């Protein structure tokens, strides 16, 4: 499948930041929204996500974000808190135009973007890091033909993200399974089935 053009990805970004959310999106959230859009909705964004500090990451997403800033589709402002920092990504003066044209030209894709933003846009960076990492491991296993169990997948995620407790990971995995997002683990617990 041909990947979407950089221009369309910028339009997707316009659609994301235009969504009515309580708090502006940050870089981590944008990164994960794109990841979920590619993996859960099968949208061929053309990103190649690798596992990094805060879960799946592709610097191309930041490249698109910078392009969108340059085109005044989004505006990125550093936000400083007690000892750290983040970014607030808000609509730029051209966001409305890009979002509207996107909806007219690609209504199905626009709906998919809306669904992903509705599902994940209100979540904090830590929660997104956890869910995207679970999905990343799941997709790796699925591609490799590995069938796991709740326990083996939880253990792998815990190895990668030791600051999350096993209970937290397991609870999130169950939730994601209920939604039908997990491919490599079947049933509730069960024993490991070799590939």
């Amino acid at each position, binding site marked *: 499948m041909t990947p979407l053009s950089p221009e369309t990805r910028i339009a997707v970004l316009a659609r994301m930041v235009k969504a009515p959310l309580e708090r502006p999106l940050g870089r981590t959230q944008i990164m994960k929204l794109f990841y979920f859009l590619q993996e859960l909705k099968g949208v061929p964004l053309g990103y190649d996500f690798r596992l990094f500090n*805060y879960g799946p990451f592709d610097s191309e997403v930041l490249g698109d974000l910078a392009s969108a800033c340059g085109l005044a589709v989004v505006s990125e402002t550093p936000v400083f808190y007690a000892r750290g*920092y983040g970014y607030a990504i808000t609509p730029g003066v051209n966001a409305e135009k890009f979002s509207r044209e996107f909806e007219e030209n690609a209504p199905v894709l626009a709906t998919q973007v809306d669904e992903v933003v509705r599902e994940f846009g209100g979540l904090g960076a830590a929660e997104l890091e956890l869910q995207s990492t679970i999905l990343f491991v799941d997709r790796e296993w699925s591609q490799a033909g590995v069938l796991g169990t709740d326990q083996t997948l939880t253990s792998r995620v815990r190895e990668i993200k030791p600051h999350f407790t096993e209970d937290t990971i397991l609870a999130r995995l169950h939730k994601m399974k209920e939604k039908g997002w997990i491919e490599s683990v079947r049933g509730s617990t069960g024993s490991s089935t070799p590939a």
Partner: protein
Amino acid sequence: MADLHRTFELRCPVHGFIPITDWEREIINQPAFQRLRRIRQLAWTDYVYPGAMHTRFEHSLGVMHIATQLFDAVVRRSAEVLKTELNYAQHELDRDKQIVRLTALLHDTGHSPFSHAGEELFPVDPKSKKYYKHEAYSASVIRNVLRDVIEGHKLNETHAIKADEIATLLEGTSSAVGKRAFWRQLIDGQMDADRMDYLLRDSLHTGVDYGKYDWRRLLNTIQVIEMPPREGEELAREPRLGVTEGGVHAAEALVLARYYMFTQVYFHKTRVAYDHHIRHALKAILPDGMFAPPTPDRINAYLDWDDWRILGRLAEGEGGEHGDRLRQRNHYREVYHTPESPNEGDRTALNLIRQSLQDLVVAAEPSKTSTYKLEASDISVVTEDELRKVRPLSHYSSVVRTLNQHPIEIVRLYAKPEHADEARAKVAGLLKDPV
């Protein structure tokens, strides 16, 4: 009996002497690594900068050297954090240092002939449905070609390092688990050893000074930065690499070096034209117009291709029209380029020019999709007072801030040499009346 613990030294034009162990020497001696002597770092760039004849071989040694220096600097400056936050014991650090060294050494073993120019001819991975990247080839070389020499050497008896550990650290897959994933930042990150070496090395060999920056000052200020939780979140974010305030200008110079090298060397108009010709000549020469996949059964077939083999085929007259252009130094000519950071009006002008020139334009090369593209940079900086506040480099540097806000997205349009004047005249006519 040979002394296994003997250290060897290789002379490097950038770093002086690079020490290697007997184990590393044996890896370097393998044909899969020696092949890098026959892959030029910057492809056909010597047609613009005649000195640019260096290869991936010397770069790979340089990356290993810088990665080691960075690793040691981080351990020296952040020993406490590594022990408390990442639970590192000394023997684990020693082992991971060796894994980082080997990952850095082998990170480019999967490069195609003429480096990045051939990457568009990688096939699609049937599992992920995405095009393979050169890292997938390097990982395959490590697993399928170099496994024995990596795992079987006497010096590996203490660490028992597996080829898979090196490959997964390079790939960024979930198997590179836990604390070792932290070191991926030295392999692929804002201040990674690859970038730090190629800027210095390419600058030296091309004869330009744009890629130089104070890398020793970076070594002197790099450290692990603990990212505190943001408001409303319970969890602290994972530690990352950054610099102290004293390193702000060295970090700024690194960002600027990338900018200058990109605009002056990597995306030079003639260089870009030659990359276009190599890509198409390769397509004409390779079986089915593409490289073999990095699967265990095909990786050796892939490794058979290097610059020498392609040059031989070109010398025999292969490569089609683009082979002819390479042989005759008759490259496409740039007839128009956008500003470095085009605004909406510039993009409209570009579209009008393309429509007007129609078939006169034989290639359009956007920097955004170039392998050498310049991404936004933001290195974390920590204050040196008790508060230890973490701020992005762009907070301190208005130059970096501006560069991030105005990404480099040049588009170059090319015509055949015989049509270049006609195309340029049309462009000049169009630009006379502002769009």
